[in-house]
């Protein structure tokens, strides 16, 4: 007799743990592969999962096996023209693995790289590992605007729609058992008495006594029955409380210089940087808004397309963009509600007289309101006065302000890591 069982609905991901163990063990290798991928991928699929390759020799499991050399006699099928005594040339590479039982073929033939897929989430995990968002204060709202209703046990007062039937009936049952205890004990005693009297039965005295006792039991039973089935006192209601929830909203300001000196390749680097930051933020916040601010001598809020692809010429006044950002924050993103991040990318050019204004705007209008301000300068040349002014700010606001230089696309990811690395 055979049993036929349908297992198709059983848990599928039996290997998940083993897979994670594997990823954990080769974290370093995978991280390196991810890093390369981030730098070489096109912007559109930077956050996709992908293939990861690890050198085969790094992950092989060693076993004792025969090396090349010595005398071997191997049997092969399909002889066509050989006769005993023929000599043939030795094939390159040791001639594969003996009887070809496959599996642990240690020699050649296999690919040099062990390649496998990781999904998007794992990819991002590796990408952003050990990074943290600085100053991520959960905004506990004083002027609470968002609440969440949570269950918090049961109460004995409440509106009928919150009545909990199971709890109420359970309480009623308990009450009835508790309050009828005395009567039921009495009944038990009387019944026992009847039993002893029944032993003497033909005796007429006993009979009358039994009848009297039966009457008594009946009376007691009536009293028990009179006990209310459910009482106001039994009613239990679901208790719901409103708790303020920390805001999980964030806004990210992308500020970029679009003056004539910014070439398309510099903008591309900036774009990659902004995308990394955006992906990173999505891991911490449920809802993210992005504000694009571009500037030459004037600043303007634009949409994404225009931000990255339209070209303008002219001089550069950075403070215009900072002022505009500060205005937008004041208008639309009250810092009580929003976690604010600003990322600024520029080639470092600025009108000389403007740089110290930038510093003041930053110090007074922006830095007190934001979580983090990251400035990247994409340049191969020497730093100019904007960088020097910003350096002063960095000294003052070390934990909300950071700046780095990017020279070529390969720097983007390392610089990003530096900006957001975990601080002790």
């Amino acid at each position, binding site marked *: 007799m*055979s*049993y*036929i*069982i*349908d*297992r*198709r609905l*059983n848990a*599928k*991901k039996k*290997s998940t*743990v*083993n*897979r*994670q*163990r*594997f*990823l*954990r*063990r080769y974290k370093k290798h995978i991280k390196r592969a991810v890093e390369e991928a981030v730098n070489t991928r096109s912007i559109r699929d930077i956050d996709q999962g992908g293939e990861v390759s690890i050198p085969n020799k790094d992950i*092989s*499991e*060693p*076993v*004792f*096996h*025969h*090396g090349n*050399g*010595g*005398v*071997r*006699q*191997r*049997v*092969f*099928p*399909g*002889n*066509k023209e*050989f006769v*005993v*005594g*023929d*000599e*043939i*040339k*030795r094939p390159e590479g040791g*001639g*594969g*693995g*003996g*009887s*070809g*039982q496959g599996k642990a073929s*240690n020699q050649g033939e296999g690919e040099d790289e*062990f*390649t*496998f*897929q990781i999904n998007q989430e794992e990819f991002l995990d590796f990408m952003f590992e050990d990074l943290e968002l600085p100053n991520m204060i959960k905004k506990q709202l004083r002027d609470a605007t968002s609440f969440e209703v949570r269950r918090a046990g049961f109460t004995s007062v409440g509106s009928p729609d919150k009545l909990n039937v199971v709890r109420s009936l359970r309480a009623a049952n308990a009450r009835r058992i508790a309050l009828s205890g005395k009567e039921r004990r009495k009944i038990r005693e009387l019944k026992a008495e009847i039993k002893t009297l029944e032993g003497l039965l033909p005796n007429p005295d006993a009979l009358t006594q039994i009848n009297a006792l039966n009457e008594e039991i009946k009376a007691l039973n009536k009293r028990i029955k009179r006990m209310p089935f459910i009482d106001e006192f039994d009613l239990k209601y679901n208790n719901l409380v409103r708790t303020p929830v920390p805001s999980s909203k964030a806004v990210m300001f992308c500020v970029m210089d679009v003056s004539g000196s910014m070439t398309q390749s510099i903008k591309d680097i900036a774009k990659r940087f902004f995308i990394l930051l955006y992906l990173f933020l999505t891991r911490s916040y449920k809802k993210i808004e992005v504000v694009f601010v571009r500037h030459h001598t004037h600043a303007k809020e634009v949409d994404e397309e225009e931000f990255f692809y339209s070209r303008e010429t002219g001089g550069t006044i950075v403070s215009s963009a900072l002022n505009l950002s500060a205005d937008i924050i004041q208008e639309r993103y009250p810092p009580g509600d929003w976690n604010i991040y600003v990322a600024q990318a520029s080639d470092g050019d600025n009108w000389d007289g403007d740089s110290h204004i930038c510093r003041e705007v930053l110090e007074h209008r922006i830095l007190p309101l934001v979580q983090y301000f990251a400035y990247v300068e994409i340049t191969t040349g020497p730093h100019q006065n904007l960088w020097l002014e910003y350096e002063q700010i960095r000294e003052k606001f070390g934990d909300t302000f950071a700046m780095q230089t990017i020279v070529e696309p390969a720097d983007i990811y390392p610089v990003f890591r530096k900006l957001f690395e975990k601080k002790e």
Partner: protein
Amino acid sequence: MKKRKPISTGSEWTFELIQQYDQEIARVAKHYGLDTYPNQIEIITSEQMMDAYSSVGMPLNYNHWSFGKQFVSTEQQYKRGQMGLAYEIVINSNPCISYLMEENTMTMQALVIAHACYGHNSFFKGNYLFRTWTDASAIIDYLLFAKNYIAKCEERHGVDAVEQMLDSCHALMNYGVNRYLRPQPVTPEEEKNRLLDREEYIQRHLNQLWNTIPKKDQVKENKAFRFPKDPEENLLYFIEKNAPLLEPWQREIVRIVRKIAQYYYPQRQTQVMNEGWACFWHYTLLNHLHDEGLVTDGFIMEFLHSHTSVIYQPPFDSPYFNGINPYALGYGMMRDIRRICEKPTNEDYKWFPDIAGSDWNETLQHAMRNYKDESFILQYLSPHMIRELKLFTITDNSTLSTMQISAIHDEEGYQKVRENLAASYNIGNREPNIQVYNVNIRGDRSLTLRHYMHNEQPLGDDADEVLKHLHQLWGFDVHLESVSPEGEIIDEFHCPPRPRAEEVA
């Protein structure tokens, strides 16, 4: 024979149909006298099949990264279409569990049932290696015990410590079997009870061994004293019992790996026979059903199509050649034995006087019960088979510049090809023969292994890596000497490494 109505005509399967086919196949199998464990047929999806693949075909196993690696690569290959998944996996347990994939057609399901549930199953139950080395009724319980035990160790001692331990044991897994000693079967309950006794006993026993307080009568002891007295082939067993620094839980892990290795040992030695047997029976059983009219011609055509592709042996110069196909060799030999019994030629009378003309079923059953690949080929590979596969031997002597053809399918060659082929299935030849030779008990506690060389073949380049694992387990210096049959030491490996002799000189 009275023609009956076929069981089904379409290619879709249903549970009712599977049940009907199973009943019919069981009836025919009984007719041929196949003795099987009860069957448990489980229908699974391809994803579940991949899970099963990566835990070495077991329904449950402890967690280890190497299974994850296996899974990841299977998944990758499958998704890219580089490989198809097996139609079935069958587990040597009682009841015998077989997995059928839901993607299979009805014909394939019937083929798999005949192949796994009656072919492999009867092999598991009948073959002497499986009977002595594995306990089909206990394996699932034992794996469950192992999984829980290792999970508990991970909780207590950390994932990393356990992983390190398992890595080291896996490296030596092939050296965790007793080749000659026969085990006594143990039930899982006994196993549990013995666990505590064992921990205590080993610690006490060890202390005895490593006791440094001299006893009076030891002074007279022979200088050439060696421990162990006889070389020990089961390295993991030796470590479990004698490694000085292991904690009880670590010893238990060594034991678990060793037990599982032992469980797989018969499978590694009977691949040709096992697959040959199963193929022979699915062929015989399904053709029997066809003769009775229970399956359609279309069914038998589809069946033959996959049957022939499974038992195809590409010649050595084909791009598809990947060694000798165990299905082809095994199936061919089983068919050949039947032929020798039913229609013997003069040659067969000369080569196989015992079986030529005897009852084929009895002869096959006898072969299935009492042989492993090596002895099976040595006993039953006929000149007819050698001619059919056109087998030939190449001798590859690394001291010569070319390789020689040393035997082909002719009168002088039959015996030689047969011996060579049989030898290539001898695990003792396939894997280097390494044994525990000595422990320096009085001195630095170093462990010396000896590699007894076979045909002058040296050790592969993984040896140093494996020694590191052994060192991890043993806790003191480990040496490995390659020894020629004359007793001369050809090569040495050390962990921690020592400069090579030439470099010193």
